[in-house]
């Protein structure tokens, strides 16, 4: 199948939709809710309605936003509709009609006012570094460097996943990388605003981030967050109308390079693990192999693949701002993925995304499921430090 987007606008795509339902069978939202209205093909019918200039009601708007933007429907679509693009445009139309769910309006306002998703002061983006207890990390902020590590809001501001940037900078140090950090100068990458139907506000943030990078001598931008990666790699050039003068990498790719260059002293870990593909890294960006190469490079690891993996991987429930719209639904989707994870016999699930880690960890604890959830960076650091 050709993988370029055929997207021709809401009206045309809604007419092209065959209502065949191929998109529906693996949609994590439809699988939980069960009514036809929650299926992607129902969203396509609503797209037609909106494209015809109709106002939509709250119930309809909710169904549009009950979506993790996991891309499973796009992968399955029999007429090659770029459903993710459709969902983005639909969200924008709904936002313009002032019908977005209340929590998303709050999220939008928070990002607009603070430059991040939590509403923290931007200075708090540097707090995660303090626990490292070595000034060399702090000195990287604003320094010149070939590689910019773009931390992302979640990694920097959610204490629960601060261990991800902490692990990654230690890996960068071990590999003797010439890297830099933006610290408080970093703003949200814009991704949550696109999912909230606010592409113009997202564009402003993109420009703000680019302005801050200009003077740092950066050649490569690396992220631990798959959504930041996807934004920087695909959405920034699309929105700003020009290719970026930077190579964009995800942490899993850079770590894989380090391993090939023998820059990381990996030691044996006697663990049974599985890997959960984050939707924005796997299906939506096509990065499947590198995280697996990295895990399998660690001596002693017993790697078990889940039945649904790579392009068929099920979503953890944490994407598309769904948490802000319907956290009960997130929990149900996560529960299903956790059952698949434990079904492999793995004691540890590794992902490459702070949102997947948060979602799976919170729900594993809530449901007393005995599985350790680790980010790839944490797992690699553990092997280095063993």
């Amino acid at each position, binding site marked *: *199948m*050709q993988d*370029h987007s*055929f997207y021709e606008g809401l009206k*045309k795509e809604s*007419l*092209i939709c*065959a*209502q*065949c*339902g*191929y998109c*529906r*069978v693996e949609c994590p939202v439809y699988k939980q809710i*069960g*009514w*036809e*209205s929650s*299926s992607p093909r*129902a969203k396509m*019918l609503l797209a037609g309605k909106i494209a015809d200039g109709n106002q939509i*009601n709250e*119930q*309809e708007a909710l169904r549009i936003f009950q979506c993790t933007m996991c891309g499973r429907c796009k992968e*399955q679509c*029999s*007429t*090659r509709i770029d459903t993710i693009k459709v969902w983005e445009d639909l969200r924008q139309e709904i936002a313009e009609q002032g019908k977005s769910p209340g929590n998303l309006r709050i999220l939008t306002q928070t990002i607009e006012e603070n430059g991040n998703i939590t509403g923290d002061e931007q200075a708090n983006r540097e707090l995660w570094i303090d626990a490292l207890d070595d000034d060399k990390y702090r000195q990287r902020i604003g320094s010149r460097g070939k590689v910019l590590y773009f931390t992302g809001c979640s990694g920097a501001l959610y204490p629960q996943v601060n261990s991800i940037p902490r692990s990654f900078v230690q890996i960068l140090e071990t590999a003797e990388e010439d890297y830099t950090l933006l610290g408080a100068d970093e703003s949200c990458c814009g991704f949550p605003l696109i999912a909230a139907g606010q592409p113009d506000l997202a564009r402003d943030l993109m420009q703000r981030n680019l302005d801050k990078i200009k003077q740092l001598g950066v050649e490569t931008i690396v992220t631990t967050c798959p959504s930041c990666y996807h934004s920087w790699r695909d959405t920034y050039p699309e929105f700003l109308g020009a290719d970026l003068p930077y190579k964009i990498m995800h942490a899993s790719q850079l770590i894989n390079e380090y391993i090939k260059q023998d820059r990381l002293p990996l030691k044996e870990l006697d663990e049974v693990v599985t890997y959960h593909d984050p939707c924005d890294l796997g299906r939506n960006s096509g990065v499947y192999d590198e995280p697996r190469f990295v895990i399998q490079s660690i001596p002693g690891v017993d790697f078990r693949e889940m*039945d649904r993996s790579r392009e068929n991987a099920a979503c953890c429930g944490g994407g598309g701002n769904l948490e802000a719209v319907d956290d009960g639904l997130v929990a149900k989707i996560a529960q299903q993925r956790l059952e698949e994870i434990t079904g492999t016999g793995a004691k540890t699930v590794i992902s490459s995304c702070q949102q997947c880690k948060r979602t799976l960890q919170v729900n594993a604890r809530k449901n007393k499921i005995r599985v350790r959830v680790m980010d790839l960076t944490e797992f690699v650091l553990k092997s280095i430090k063993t």
Partner: protein
Amino acid sequence: MTQKYQRLMEEFQDQVTRDDFERSFYTRDLASVPPIMTRLMFQTKPDLVVSPLNEECIEETMRLAIEERLAVIPRAGATTAYMNTVPADGGILIDLNRLRGVLDIDKENLLAEAWSGTPWYEVEQTLQKNGFSLCTYPSSAVAATVGGWFNTEGYGIGSMQYGCFHDQVEAAQIYLPQGKWIDARQEGSYPLSWFMGKEGTLGIVSRVRFRIRHLPEAEYHAALAIDSFTQLVSIINRLAGQAPGAYNVQFSDSDCFSMQADLGYEVPLHDRHLVCITYQGSAEEIKAAKKNVQQLAADTGAEMMPEQVGQEVWDDRLYALKIKRGGPTLLAGEVALSADKIPLFYQQVKKLNQRTAVYGHFMGPNKANILVQYYADESKNIQYLFQMAKTKRIYDAAISLGGRPYGVGIWNSVYLKRVFPEDILRQRKAIKQELDPLGIMNPGKYYSPPALLHPVLFGMGSGIANGISSLVGIGKGR
């Protein structure tokens, strides 16, 4: 709301809805029919939707329907296009998609049992994990369900070797509109043949048990380019007697590829047709098949295409709709026809004054199921009505050659009297009368056309539309 409705809703809370918003998504199927047509003739919105998670819910819903004499419309993947899954006059719609999963694999006797709402691809994945495979599946396997194919014609991928899915069914659990469960078997007081292919007009199927096979060791997809469908007939005639037998034979005409090429897809051919023959079996059998195909190509004047072409056509076998993007609407007529009539049928189809993509599967060595697809634009109302009328010419062509429409529902019920002998139609109606004396199961479908679709009126309407279309060019296709 009556007390009985209320009771059902209380007992099966999240499996029942009367919400207007929820019900509004069950008013159509694959076919885009102008509201002016449906509103005039039907009440397509169900009064209640039930999405059972278990058999108890089916039973209670059916009891309510029987007591209140309400119509019951079974709906699964809704990958059909003849309004089979849409209410003709309100009623209770039973959405079977949540009855999903493989229940049993009997490895010794090569049988599997699945909930009726399980999509075929999911059954196949589960079987493959255990070293088994389906004998046949529809080319809509991503979304079509076990119960859906049981209730429709049952031919598809693999039918060249294994025939109809209905022949592979060993048993089915069905709730009858008389108010009881039955375990239908090939033989017995409720033979499976009464129910299979009857489009949900005789009961709700909850579980189906069917034959499976060991996962083949190897497979091979041969792609042969041909210049005419007479060559296709020669190929299929030669294949009929050969060992090893072909698992699947499908064909696409040159317009299938030109439509794809227009959309920017890479295509293997531009001005010829393609036959793809799939063999599945032991490594030895595949070796023999490869040799046979070489000879077959030489004997019939077909050109062997690189192996990769066969593989790509096979990989695309569930994606016939990918050309729809060029429409945006894709109208279609699907027929069953004996193999030797394909060339004549093709000639007639190509006189439609419309580019048509013709694509088919063999249902066995001498019968094919042919899908004729053409572009239209439903956003242009009047023109669209004229374009729709052309499907009648496709069916007329097939019927004149001894073929018939594939599937009935509402829209094709107008052809029943032309394609089935009177005694068969009478027999079907008698079984319906016996099993569903209240006439509540999927009413308005399968047995006879609704009054406004009377065959004479329909024939006149379509004829006039086609006449005007060829005279003044309205609805003239691309």
